Structures are given as structure tokens and as C-alpha cells.
């Protein structure tokens, strides 16, 4: 495969598409499928055939605004239809070449205009199971460019200059990580893609793997070239069977086209990828636990150093990157580091994908430039809290993050500012809570999660989270004491300082952040035996003796 052949495939796809006057794109992501987009696509295909019009019905990955699903977008007019039922197929096909169907049409310009799509640029536009669709949108150009025009060092230099940081949540500079693995001397190195999106309430990586699988594969191949790896693994949650299917298809097609395997694109570079299934353990998102799991063992983390970059999978230097980080690689190589670092602010460059869920009008997947304020995301893109309720908090970073209150909504989204606010960037879950959510109950929910997901290897995490859970349960049932609050803070400190891995070190964050911003709710539970949100079941107040 060379650049001319690649261009030829793109030309062929364009010529094929020109045979059609209209493209009807149907979102086939989980949220839309759960509302019947499968039957809808069949109905559209049938109606299109019967109409005699030249219509291409294409299934695509996530278009974004899931709450309006099932979504259909008609190109080239870019008309977006929402909540489309199979029975609407006839009307949509009949309207082609005429005025759009008004009852189904939706105007989400405000929703989309404030976004900036880099990672998600193909999702909703390509059939994820067709490699040619991906190639027609500049796919694999970056790999070819890296292999034929750049040295591995050039690639690492480019990434360093782009200031891309790990999108798994911690924000480690990607270029620096790649450089460390590249410098490690070894005959065998690995590249691992972390697709174990265990953070409940987040589905960005699932949508990327399902909607644009080749983006991830291309990123991995470029990474392997840069660090000198010959073998790669994608570690995917078993709970994501569709992602596994799409990646399997993607791997097969990429091998057939010569983007994976021996002598990729007629160069000396050889690299192949295998899929490894997770089995439902949150701790396996931690890199050393993930590696243990790939090796077929229990997901117990190991003390670092040595870091996986020097001694990882089977003791060999291993580069581990999150799905979204890898999905950023190809566009950076294609368009350059200046283009990338022109987006974002301060030390947080580029864009970030968030899964916007909870009590918000437009739930779904959004991609925004770093530095945007939380208010712009929640009130602008998300459409605010529905049903006349009032906003209370937004939770980022999942069980490792914290709850950010109303008064901090003008905070810019950067790695540093979120940490300052007591939360973390995390992998991208953003859960909005309104006045019907009890913050003590939410803290208890997260601690219960961490308690049951603790691998049990180190005591602070194993026993500490259990103690915190007991105390929080006591407070939620109206049996707490004011001393409990100090005890909680004390425990949080111990667990943070002394746990072995990220799970334990960050587990106290939901408790600390709710104590910081919603202390009155804790006090209300303890002193007045009352849950302000009416969530906790507290027995009628009883007289407490002295």
C-alpha cells in the first residue's frame, strides 16, 4: 500500500457514493439500537428501494445526542431527524428532494456548534465495518506518513510538541511516555490499548471503538512504530460485545489491506494486534492490574516503579494508552502539532470527549475544546437540567473524581483546575445531579463501588473503604454523629496517602468533595435526622439522650 493506492481507494469510495443522490445515515450506537434503530434501518432500506430514488442507507456510529435517538441524518442537506420510528421511514424517503419532514426534524445547531470534533470526527459519518469509508476520510494516511516520511524520533517529537496528555484521566504527557518506551532497550516491546472503560457512567471509549475502530488501530500502529514495538493488545471490557465485534472486523480488514502484519506498507515495520477481553473488574483500568489480566492472572496492581514503560507485559517495555489518547494520534500526525496545540488552554491542549448523562436535557456524547467552562457544557450544549428542577452538582472522574457545585460552574475544564476543585478530569464521565439527588447518598454509592471493586491486596483500600462505607451508611440512616465527619476526613487522608494504586488513592475523592461543598447535607442528616433531597430512608426522629 502506498499513498497513490490509498488515494485511489478514497476516489473509488467517492465515485461509488456519487451514484447516490442522497445519503441516509442511521445511528447504530447502543443507545439508538435500544430504541429500535435496527428495524428503522431495515425499513429505510426497503422504502428507499421501493421509491426508485438513488438513496444510500448507511449505518454509522454514535452521532452524539442520544436523548433524541434514534437519530437519522440525511446528507448532503445535513437534515437531522430525531426519535425516528420504523413507521416514519416512508415519509423520510418520500421527502428526499423536497422539504424535510417537519415533525421529525430537530435543530441541534446550538448543541453541535459549541463542540469541536477531532476524536469523534468520523463517528456518525462512516460505516464502522467498512475500512474504505475510513480511508475515504483520510484514514491510514497518518500511518503511511509516519512510516515513509518520519523517523520514530520525529513522531515522538511531534507528539511532545502537540502537548497531548493521556486521556485516561491522569494526564501524563503522551510524548514523554512514548519517549521512555522508545529509549528502553529490548528486543521485544508491546503497545497496549486500555479499553477497559470501568468507570460507571462513561461510554466515550465504547463509542469510539464501535463507531470508528480503525482510528484506534491506526493510532496503535503509529505508536508501535514510534516506540519500536512489534506486538499490540487491545484490552476491552467483556460488557462491550459490539466493540469487540467491530474491532475484530477492523483487525481483519486492516490486515487484508496490509496496515497490520508483516512489512506494513512495504516497509521494514511489522506489527500486529490481538484483542483481550476484560472480565468485569474496575481495578483493571489501573495499568499494572491490566497487564496482570492480559497475562491471564487476577487483576492485582503492582508497586511502581518499575513502570510498565520499562518493565510491563511479561517484563518487557510496554506502552499503555487509553482509547481516546490513541484516537488523537492520527489527526496530530496528519495535521501537525501546532494545529493540535492551538486548541485548548494552558497545559491542557486539544479536545476532550465527555459522556454527558444524568439529570440533563441532552444526554449523549460531546467533544469540546479544553478550557471550555462547565457552564457552557451543561447549560449550553447539554441544555440544562430539565423538568423544572435545579442544578445541584456535576460529577466528573467517576469513583475517582468528585462533585462540583453550582458556584464553580464557570470553572474552565483543564486537568489542573478540576484537581483544584477536588475532582479530576477522569476518562470523561460527566454526570449531572439535580435537587433530587442526596450528596451523602451519592458519596455512599461511590464508596460502596470502590469497596466492592477493591482488589483486596492492600489494607488501606480494602479495610478503609469498608469502614467509610459503614460510617456513610450510618449517616444516611440518621444514626450518625458529628464526630463521624472528622473520622471520615481522617480515613480519607490515610487511604489517599497509603494505598498502593490509583483505585485506593482516589477512592476518597467523592467523599472529600461532597464534604467540602455539601457539608450542610451531612450535618442535616446527623443533627436533624433529615435527608434534604428525600432520598435516604430515615426513621422518624427519635429523642437522643444527651
Amino acid at each position, binding site marked *: 500500500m502506498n499513498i497513490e493506492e490509498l488515494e485511489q481507494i478514497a476516489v473509488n469510495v467517492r465515485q461509488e457514493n456519487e451514484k447516490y443522490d442522497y445519503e441516509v445515515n442511521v445511528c447504530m450506537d447502543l443507545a439508538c439500537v435500544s430504541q429500535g434503530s435496527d428495524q428503522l434501518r431495515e425499513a429505510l432500506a426497503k422504502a428507499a428501494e421501493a421509491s426508485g430514488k438513488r438513496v444510500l442507507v448507511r449505518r454509522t456510529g454514535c452521532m452524539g445526542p442520544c436523548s433524541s435517538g434514534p437519530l437519522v441524518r440525511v446528507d448532503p442537506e445535513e437534515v437531522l431527524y430525531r426519535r425516528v420510528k420504523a413507521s416514519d421511514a416512508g415519509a423520510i424517503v418520500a421527502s428526499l428532494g423536497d422539504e424535510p419532514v417537519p415533525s421529525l426534524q430537530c435543530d441541534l445547531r446550538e448543541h453541535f456548534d459549541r463542540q469541536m470534533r477531532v476524536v469523534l470526527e468520523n463517528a456518525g459519518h462512516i460505516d464502522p465495518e467498512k475500512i474504505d469509508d475510513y480511508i475515504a476520510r483520510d484514514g491510514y494516511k497518518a500511518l503511511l506518513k509516519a512510516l515513509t516520511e518520519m523517523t520514530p524520533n520525529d513522531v515522538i517529537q511531534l507528539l511532545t510538541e502537540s502537548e497531548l496528555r493521556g486521556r485516561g484521566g491522569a494526564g501524563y504527557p503522551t510524548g514523554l511516555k512514548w519517549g521512555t518506551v522508545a529509549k528502553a532497550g529490548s528486543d521485544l516491546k508491546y503497545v497496549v490499548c486500555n479499553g477497559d472503560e470501568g468507570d460507571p457512567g462513561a461510554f466515550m471509549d465504547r463509542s469510539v471503538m464501535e463507531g470508528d475502530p480503525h482510528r484506534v488501530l491506526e493510532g496503535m500502529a503509529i505508536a508501535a512504530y514510534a516506540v519500536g514495538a512489534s506486538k499490540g493488545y487491545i484490552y476491552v471490557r467483556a460488557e462491550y460485545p459490539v466493540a469487540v465485534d467491530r474491532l475484530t472486523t477492523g483487525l481483519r480488514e486492516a490486515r487484508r489491506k496490509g496496515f497490520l502484519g508483516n512489512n506494513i506498507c512495504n516497509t521494514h515495520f511489522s506489527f500486529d494486534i490481538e484483542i483481550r477481553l476484560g*472480565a468485569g473488574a474496575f481495578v483493571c483500568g489501573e495499568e499494572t492490574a491490566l497487564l496482570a489480566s*492480559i497475562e491471564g492472572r487476577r487483576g492485582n496492581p503492582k508497586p511502581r516503579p518499575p513502570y510498565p514503560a520499562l518493565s510491563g507485559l511479561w517484563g518487557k517495555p510496554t506502552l499503555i494508552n487509553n482509547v481516546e489518547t490513541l484516537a488523537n494520534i492520527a489527526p496530530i500526525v496528519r495535521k501537525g502539532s501546532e494545529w493540535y496545540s492551538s486548541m485548548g488552554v494552558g497545559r491542557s491542549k486539544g479536545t476532550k470527549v465527555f459522556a454527558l448523562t444524568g439529570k440533563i436535557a441532552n444526554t449523549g456524547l460531546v467533544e469540546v475544546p479544553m478550557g471550555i467552562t462547565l457552564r457552557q457544557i451543561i447549560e449550553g450544549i447539554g441544555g440544562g437540567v430539565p423538568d423544572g428542577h435545579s442544578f445541584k452538582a456535576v460529577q466528573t472522574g467517576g469513583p475517582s473524581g468528585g462533585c462540583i457545585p453550582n458556584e464553580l460552574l464557570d470553572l474552565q475544564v483543564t486537568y489542573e483546575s478540576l484537581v483544584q476543585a477536588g475532582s479530576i478530569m477522569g476518562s470523561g464521565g460527566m454526570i449531572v445531579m439535580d435537587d433530587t439527588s442526596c450528596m451523602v447518598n451519592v458519596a455512599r454509592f461511590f464508596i460502596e463501588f470502590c469497596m466492592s471493586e477493591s482488589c483486596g491486596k492492600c489494607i488501606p483500600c480494602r479495610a478503609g473503604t469498608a469502614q467509610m462505607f459503614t460510617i456513610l451508611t450510618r449517616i444516611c440512616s440518621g444514626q450518625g454523629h458529628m464526630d463521624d465527619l472528622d473520622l471520615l476526613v481522617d480515613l480519607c487522608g490515610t487511604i489517599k496517602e497509603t494505598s498502593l494504586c490509583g483505585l485506593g488513592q482516589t477512592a476518597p475523592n467523592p467523599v472529600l468533595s461532597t464534604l467540602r461543598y455539601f457539608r450542610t447535607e451531612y450535618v442535616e442528616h446527623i443533627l436533624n435526622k433529615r435527608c434534604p433531597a428525600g432520598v435516604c430512608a430515615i426513621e422518624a426522629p427519635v429523642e437522643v439522650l444527651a
Partner: protein
Amino acid sequence: MSAFTPPALPSDDKRWKIVNGTMRKNGFARYALIETLHTVQSSFGYLDDDAIRFVALSLRVPLSQAYGVATFYHYFSLKPPGKHTMTICLGTACYIKGSAKLMAEAETHLGIAQGETTKDKLIGLVQARCVGACSRAPVVVSDGEVAGEMTGEQVIEQLERWVAE
């Protein structure tokens, strides 16, 4: 060193051949333990002692380690599933939108706790930590079919449909 001979298949049930296939594909390497247990679970529905023993012996993994892995990961079940399975998602987005109430209603209706199967082995009730359909919370998966924005009534209706079948 004498060549290792994998143990004979536990029975002539064809599903063991599928399990063996996964191990052979991985050259009977120890790291194939989790992959193989996945195949056992997808073929038999759960992992029983015989299966874990067979896989451990075939891959030359200590029994303790195989059992350790089987119990460490939530995805593996050591009990046979019911004829139907209802999975209620208790991920954060679903929890915020009241999935704990759905779970409580299902538990009361079936008279079992989450993680259990009804006495007649008809319906198993399990919780998920997030199925990734958060935008449609609260989410319930009935025999693999994902449904969003579920209410208590819809959960009970589904359970009754299975009983009436």
C-alpha cells in the same frame, strides 16, 4: 523434558471441543486462562468445578490460581443462570436516575435478592456496573436486549411476560 499431554475432554459434549479450541489457538499457554474461561462461560452459561479443573489442568495452571481468577472477576458466574436473565444497571448515571428502586421492585416481585435465581430456575436477577448506555438511564438488559428509560411497571411487566410464557 517430556512433551505435555493435555487431559482428555471431560465428556463427549461438543461444547468441550469449543473450549479446547480456544486453548489450542493460544498454544495451551497459561495466559489463555481468562480467554478460555470466557469460552466456557459463553458455551455453558457458567463455570462449574469440572470446567475450572479441566481448564487448569490443560493450561498447567495451579487449581488455586484458576479458582482465584474465576472468583476475582465479576463477569464469571459459578452458578448456573436462570432460563431468563434480567440485568439492572447500577452504574452512576442509572443510579442517579433511580435504578436502585427498580432493583428493589424486581427483588420484591421475585422474592429473591440480586445475584440469585428463582427457585424454579426461571429468572435470574443480576446487577451490572455499567453497560455503557448511560445516556438512556436507567437501563435494564433483558436476555441481552438493552432497554432504556425504564420504569418499575415495565420491569414487572417483563418479569410477568417470562412467567406467562
